[in-house]
């Protein structure tokens, strides 16, 4: 019962956050000077044009009425129609979502692998130059955001030493017909490893750019937790029993030290997803973020609104899942 109550309370909080986010996007777009119609029309539109467009999009009604109309639509899965692309927003946005999800998950996997390896190496060689070097690298990685790492990667592995692709999601020459928008998974499941390798070669640079700062955070926290665990009595016991240092760290310390890192990864994953907006732009990757920037440039109000709400939904769902996982993993919270 306790657990159910916890879940319900957390769910209610998430819904409040989401509703708040929806209201803010709606209000920001409409209240701030320069009404949305002015945003949609090219400069030099006549007053008559503005009037017509306002009626067409229901913008002549009060904000509260507009919000109700929009909300009714959203609850039925209708996010309106994109002005620049003339297609339903829900369709466009859901079509791009897999690209962004694949990129985010790939970045997360790289970050966990890289950060974990850095933490374990530094712990194994603690007090040596190796640890010092990893600390310095981590400090650098953390000081500079993904956008700049992306540019550095473009220079290093796109120009100086062209190992990977720096634009797009797949080579046009592949000519492969996809049935879903999950290119990475679909090519793998259909056993087209050549296509899969091509997609990975496109995704690796943007994913790595997103992963570098997160890897550093993971590495720092995990190393700290590991070191704290290594001082505990049961580890000393294992050591007196003659286990090797590697197996002590991997089998005794790691399982106990990993919980704070898991929570951190959950929280940081939303920041990583937020980072895809500019990284997709930088690498001309056809995902949600790239579409969002185009929507802003084209002054496509319904599309912007739909994308921002989808991001907010994504963030809220991830945060909710993280909290629930944490509660399930941490026995102290389970009975709280």
């Amino acid at each position: 019962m306790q657990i159910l109550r916890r879940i319900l309370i957390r769910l209610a909080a998430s819904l409040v956050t989401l509703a708040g986010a929806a209201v803010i996007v709606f209000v920001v777009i409409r209240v701030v000077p320069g009404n949305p119609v002015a945003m949609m029309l090219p400069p030099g539109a006549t007053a008559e044009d503005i009037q017509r467009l306002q009626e067409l999009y229901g913008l002549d009604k009060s904000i509260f009425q507009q919000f109700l109309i929009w909300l009714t639509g959203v609850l039925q899965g209708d996010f309106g129609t994109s002005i620049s692309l003339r297609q339903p927003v829900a369709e466009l946005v859901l079509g791009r979502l897999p690209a962004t999800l694949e990129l985010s998950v790939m970045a997360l996997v790289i970050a966990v692998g890289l950060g974990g390896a850095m933490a374990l190496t530094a712990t194994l060689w603690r007090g040596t130059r190796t640890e010092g070097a990893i600390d310095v690298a981590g400090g650098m990685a953390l000081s500079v955001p993904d956008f700049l790492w992306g540019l550095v990667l473009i220079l290093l592995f796109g120009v100086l030493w062209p190992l990977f692709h720096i634009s797009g999601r797949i080579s046009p020459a592949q000519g492969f017909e996809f049935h879903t928008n999950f290119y990475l998974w679909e090519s793998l499941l259909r056993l087209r490893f050549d296509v899969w390798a091509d997609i990975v070669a496109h995704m690796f640079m943007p994913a790595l750019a997103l992963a570098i700062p997160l890897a550093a955070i993971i590495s720092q926290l995990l190393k700290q937790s590991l070191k704290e665990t290594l001082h505990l009595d049961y580890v000393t016991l294992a050591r007196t029993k003659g286990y090797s240092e590697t197996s002590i760290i991997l089998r005794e310390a790691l399982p106990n030290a990993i919980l704070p890192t898991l929570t951190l990864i959950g929280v940081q994953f939303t920041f990583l997803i937020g980072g895809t907006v500019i990284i997709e732009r930088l690498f001309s990757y056809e995902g949600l973020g790239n579409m969002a920037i185009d929507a802003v440039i084209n002054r496509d109000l319904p599309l912007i609104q739909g994308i921002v709400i989808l991001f907010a939904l994504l963030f809220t769902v991830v945060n909710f899942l993280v909290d629930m996982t944490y509660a399930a993993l941490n026995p102290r919270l389970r009975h709280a």
Partner: protein
Amino acid sequence: MRDARGEIRRLPGPRLWLAGGWLAILVLAALLAPWISPHDPLAQDLFAGRLPPVWEAGADPNYLLGTDSLGRDVLSRILHGARLALSIALIAGTLTCLIGATLGLIAGYYGGWVDLAVSRLVDIWMAFPPVLFAILLIAVLGTGVTSIIIAIVVIDWTRFARVVRAEAMGQAQMDYVASAQVAGRSRFGTVLAEILPNVLPAIVALLTLEMGIAVIVEAILSFVNLSVSTDAPTWGGMIAEGRASVHQAWWVLVFPLAALFLTVLSFSQLGEGLKDHFDPVLR
């Protein structure tokens, strides 16, 4: 057995000097840009397009770091770009700090419904990707320096509010706050005179970090062409052009990127250094 505490200390010396040194040079360069720039940053010379930097073959010694596709001097544009980057860092950073810290202080000290309202607002803010939020705000507000500053303040006040709220909450529990109130100070007086000085070090460190973030946000906005006017010299705008022609003219990307990278790194190192310096646990 090795000591777990020992290695938390990082090298304080050279890191802070290098960061401070670069920022000092940059401030000078920004202030003196109109006098030390070899060329007008807007002047185009279509016969001198994409000239490489002087040490490469085919360069023109008049253009130290080469020219972009329109024949504009890369060095002069970087120097002038520093003016915008640093102005935004200073103004947007300070405003964000003032607004966020004030809200955090009030929420942390008074608690109750004020705290609840601020915390809910912070939660809602965390549900937006910051870059997307900034771009959206610029689209609504229109481009220009004022819009960029407003956008940075609006997206980033939560950073200060969160930290300062937590600090103020901790301080509000302390005995000295209770004794100040017994001694007859008003509640607001207590906040200003007793709590603020104790959270100030954390605020200063955060402010330094925030300046680096402001520089990045401005660069990102000018990268997507939503900052100031299109041909104004901005690091982000230069980087956008350099990205597009990276295979033909690497220098158009490399030099502004290096300036931006060092600046962001310096602000961040300085902020981290200050944080360590003020943190009694680490000292």
